[in-house]
């Protein structure tokens, strides 16, 4: 009897001990979409990037002021315009435990440039200018470019150019969609499709101070359900939705993180359309818009009036608030329409996608353009169809959300140079093309800025698209979450975050 009693006591003690033992620190993150695999070289989806950023790192990083800063490469030098030599940080380990060396950098870029992979970085915006990558010694690697390319350094910060573990890629059969082979602070754990992804702390991570034992990413597509999950403490952090802002403000235990994004929402015009060939019509459209009203109604007021080089681009940005075409003036717009011979107006279709802000912008624009006699027929497309129309330039007007990227080369040349692969308006201006080339051909920052500003101003006057808003990104988190500081470059940096109740 006594024995049983002592046994029970011991059991109870053991139980209470495990209960008081410190629980590992876990971050629960409510996200809005299901990831589609975790190969940093082939998967662009934001839902995946969010998780891949925990697992992979790049040679360099870009800070919130758009300066290039060291990451896996500690230092670099540029002996001539076409050559970059990177000196790698020593003691950085892959998740397999093997040290990352120059060979791995070489392998990563060869993988990206291998035509069979179809890597996203294998294009002019990223690694396309690389001629060859050579290993100088264990910790030094030399890149030779085909031509001068000023945006090269900042492009290296893109997660599409992450450094991966050759052995891990081979072990996984050539793709990393469901495994992790990076140097980041977390390692891929369990993936329950359409429910959750868990990443665990990588104990050999080269930086100290990672506090979370694991991060669990949950898919909760419904914004109101996500908000409920946060308020009941079921998750610690959610992807915010501007419609929920007033609720987040009211909730006592919720902290709001507001970040200027590098995205902007714009009305793309198809310059092949007869009426839109006339610059006066395009300017009239810009004058007809009340941008603040679009923001109030379609973005719940949570965006700023912006051009296609948004304020988050720092010194590269051009302030559009004072630009004459950004001031709503219906009378002047009507005059321009009259001058162009369209006094009686005409009808255009406007293609919009499923994203709430895009779809709702279409509704508001339809009303605003009616005032100058343009009858807009809004066409809502399901996502894949929308992308298809975008790609084949099958639209009159289209509301798009674009990312301006980390370098003005992306914001300007990619979207507006005659050969730019995202130039869906089919806009062509020889001076803009020339300026883009000049800017890519020099590494003098002031000089580049001058070129880009001139190009941006030309484009603003000629209106191949009519940009109106740059939305804020929102993260709502529990007030217990500390040490978390999201930026436009990285909204999901939890390296030094922790939970303190």
């Amino acid at each position, binding site marked *: 009897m006594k024995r049983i009693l002592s046994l029970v006591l011991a059991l109870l003690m053991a139980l209470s001990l495990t209960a008081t033992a410190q629980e590992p620190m876990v971050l629960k993150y409510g996200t809005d979409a299901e990831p589609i695999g975790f190969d940093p070289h082939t998967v662009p989806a934001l839902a995946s990037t969010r998780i891949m950023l925990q697992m992979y790192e790049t040679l360099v990083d870009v800070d919130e002021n758009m300066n290039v800063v060291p990451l896996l490469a500690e230092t670099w030098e540029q002996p001539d315009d076409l050559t970059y030599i990177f000196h790698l940080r020593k003691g950085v380990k892959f998740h397999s435990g093997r040290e990352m060396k120059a060979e791995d950098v070489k392998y990563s870029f060869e993988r990206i440039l291998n035509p069979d992979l179809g890597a996203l970085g294998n294009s002019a915006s990223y690694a396309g200018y690389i001629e060859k990558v050579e290993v100088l010694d264990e910790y030094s690697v030399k890149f030779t470019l085909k031509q001068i390319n000023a945006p090269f350094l900042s492009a290296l910060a893109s997660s599409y150019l992450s450094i991966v573990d050759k052995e891990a890629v081979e072990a996984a059969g050539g793709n990393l969609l469901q495994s992790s082979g990076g140097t980041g602070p977390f390692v891929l754990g369990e993936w329950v499709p359409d429910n959750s992804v868990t990443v665990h702390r990588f104990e050999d991570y080269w930086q100290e101070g990672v506090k979370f034992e694991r991060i669990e990413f949950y898919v909760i597509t419904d914004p*109101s359900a996500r908000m409920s999950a946060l308020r009941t403490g079921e998750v610690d952090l959610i992807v915010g939705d501007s419609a929920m802002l007033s609720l987040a403000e009211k909730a006592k235990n919720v902290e709001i993180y507001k970040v200027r994004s590098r995205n902007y929402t714009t009305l793309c015009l198809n310059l092949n359309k007869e009426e839109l060939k006339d610059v006066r019509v395009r300017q009239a459209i810009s004058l007809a818009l009340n941008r603040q009203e679009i923001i109030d109604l379609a973005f719940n007021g949570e965006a700023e009036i912006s051009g296609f080089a948004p304020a988050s681009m720092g010194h590269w940005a051009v302030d559009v608030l004072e630009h004459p075409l950004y001031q709503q003036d219906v009378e002047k717009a009507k005059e321009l329409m009259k001058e162009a011979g369209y006094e009686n107006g005409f009808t255009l279709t406007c293609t919009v996608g499923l994203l709430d802000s895009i779809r709702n912008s279409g*509704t508001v624009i339809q009303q605003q353009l009616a005032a100058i006699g343009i009858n807009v027929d809004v066409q809502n497309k*399901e996502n894949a169809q929308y992308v298809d129309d975008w790609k084949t330039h099958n639209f009159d007007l289209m509301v798009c959300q674009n990312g301006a990227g980390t370098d003005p080369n992306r914001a300007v040349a990619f979207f507006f140079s005659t050969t730019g692969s995202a130039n869906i308006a089919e806009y062509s201006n020889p001076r803009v093309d020339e300026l883009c080339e000049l800017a890519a051909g020099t590494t003098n920052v002031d000089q580049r800025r001058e070129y880009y500003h001139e190009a941006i101003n030309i484009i603003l006057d000629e209106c191949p698209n009519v940009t109106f808003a740059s939305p804020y990104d929102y993260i709502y988190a529990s007030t217990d979450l500390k040490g978390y500081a999201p930026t436009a470059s990285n909204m999901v940096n939890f390296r030094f975050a922790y939970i303190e109740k």
Partner: protein
Amino acid sequence: MSDKKTYVDRRLPTGDSLLKQLWQDPLGRAGFLGILFILLLALFAPIIARYDVAQINSKARLAAPSGTYWFGTDNFGRDIFSRIVYGAQVSLLVGVVSVSIAAGIGYLFGLAAGFFEGKVESTIMMLMDIIFAFPSILLALLIVAVLGTSIVNTMIAIGIVNIPVFARTVRASVKAVKGTDYIANARSVGLKNSVILFRHITPNSLAPFTVQATLALSSAILTEATMSFLGLGIQPPNPSWGSMLSEARTYMEMAPWMVVFPALFIIFTILSFNILGDALRDALDPKLKL
């Protein structure tokens, strides 16, 4: 001696007596009046509505119900009452047109399958099985994805999905009638197939068909709402109740009126159709008469 089943006349009672019978059933009466109410709302929408349904107004965004806006306003500052009233047009139109498509095609298929039997029957019924084997909401989505999003395409998609139910109902009643002496007699006096089909079999299969149509109307409205939720229903700025409800979900807590009114009207309409269908079934089902 053949043991032919005795002929049960399942023709619709004449319009007059059926209405009378429905009217006597309190539920039938309620369903009937409910639908009449929505129908009147749709018919007189231009008179009843108080504002332009598409007119946005950033100053009156998410306004609570008041004397100015009886049902409040939505996230575009549009008057919800007016949108509900016009939404009755859209929702009823979607229901009626898609059910007509389904009923029309399903009827012909069912009639042909039931009457001709053999190869015709097995081919038609196999086609019906193929359609039926797809989960309905997902099939409707696929069809809209192929055709593109528009009101007409939504109606076509919901219509196609509902064809098999009608085909089966009609086929079953055709077969039931066919086995009777009544039709055998018609044949023996030398009536042509087409005459037998349309003069004798059609009226006899109308009863279950009518019930089916009433119920299909309610499910069509519900399907449209669900498709709107998935982003492929009736497209804004058209005010269908389904799209209003699905747009309102995000504002459920800040502006509950955005959810409450479209939801009430959807539920009311579907319920009315269901109750009427239920009562009709009772009225037409001789087995339930004690």
